[in-house]
């Protein structure tokens, strides 16, 4: 959502079909689709009201929610002594990561992440096309944003609601729910990369990733 609302803010010909198809997907939701569409766009078709709305969702509602969740995440990492760790008695090193060490790692991560993004944005110019003005189409790009190419490929197969909303939402929810659904990992193996007891989860995750990557590649090649 944060990616899509940010992508739309370009408001150029490059986003015309992504915005049209993405918002028309809402209409395919039974019962509430049309009302939801008008609520999201602020009109019966994409226009200035839609741009303001996507701007507010992107910089206010979604960013604020993201910030709250991120703060909670960092707090839990600190409190739990890492992303995942075995109970104190079963760990080889019972010491928790210190606050200073955690802060050092996070700042380093932010620094290198920031430098990487700045270098990338300097070397690869942003693909901004001609501004979108009304219904006149100027060489619009029909590709979905890169993170939704797999959904665009799915949509070529048929029903928008099933393939464009239910299935992607189901996949995302399933990935989020995996730690709660598969409790295979043994306590002694917590906090380790690719534990043996978690092979079933790893296999399912790899399978989902391969399908998404394959759909994305297929979409790019067409």
């Amino acid at each position, binding site marked *: 959502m944060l990616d899509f609302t940010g992508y739309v803010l370009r408001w150029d010909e490059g986003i015309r*079909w992504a915005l*049209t*198809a993405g918002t*028309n*997907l809402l209409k395919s939701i039974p019962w509430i689709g049309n009302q939801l569409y*008008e609520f999201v*766009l*602020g*009109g*019966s*078709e994409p*226009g*200035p*009201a*839609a741009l303001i*709305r996507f701007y*507010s969702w992107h910089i*206010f509602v979604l960013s604020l929610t993201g910030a709250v969740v991120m703060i909670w995440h960092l707090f839990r990492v600190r409190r739990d002594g890492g992303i995942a760790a075995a109970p104190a008695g079963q760990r080889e090193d019972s010491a928790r990561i210190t606050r200073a060490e955690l802060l050092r790692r996070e700042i380093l991560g932010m620094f290198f992440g920031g430098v990487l993004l700045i270098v990338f944005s300097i070397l690869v110019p942003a693909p901004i096309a001609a501004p979108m003005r009304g*219904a*006149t*189409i100027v060489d*619009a790009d*029909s590709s979905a944003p890169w993170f939704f190419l797999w959904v*665009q490929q799915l*949509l*070529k*197969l*048929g*029903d*928008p609601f099933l393939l*464009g909303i239910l299935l992607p939402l189901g996949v995302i929810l399933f990935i989020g729910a995996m730690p709660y659904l598969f409790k295979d990992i043994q306590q002694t193996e917590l906090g380790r990369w690719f534990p043996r007891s978690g092979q079933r989860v790893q296999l399912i995750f790899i399978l989902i990733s391969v399908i998404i990557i394959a759909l994305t590649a297929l979409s790019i090649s*067409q």
Partner: protein
Amino acid sequence: MKKPSRRDFLKLASNSLLGLSGLLGLGGLIRFLSFDMDPAPPSEYDLGLATDFPPGSRTLLMHIPAVLIHDNDGWRAFSMVCTHLGCTVEQKDSGYECPCHGSKYDTAGYVARGPSNTPLKKLRVEVNDAGNLILFMN
């Protein structure tokens, strides 16, 4: 009256600021929900003199977007908005094709290949008293 401690003062100040920003956010949310809709697109278009579209012509009206056909049966028109997810179809040799998800329609606007399963929307065309063609969107 007891002088408030530094801790109490800071607590009151931070709670007040939080409450105020919450109220401001709530105000924004109420304004957001009670929005004025953008005006709806026109429900009819004046295409100009009917004689500008001679028999046998097939005209793409990209600003609408629609196709206007003048053949032996008279005037016909259909929308160029794909019935799958709303992208504008492009004219090809065999008919029309949607650039977004690849739906194909024949020259009469009927589905030739999915994912779309509904023909392009037919539009009503009338000639008014002044001899102008009027295209109705609904």
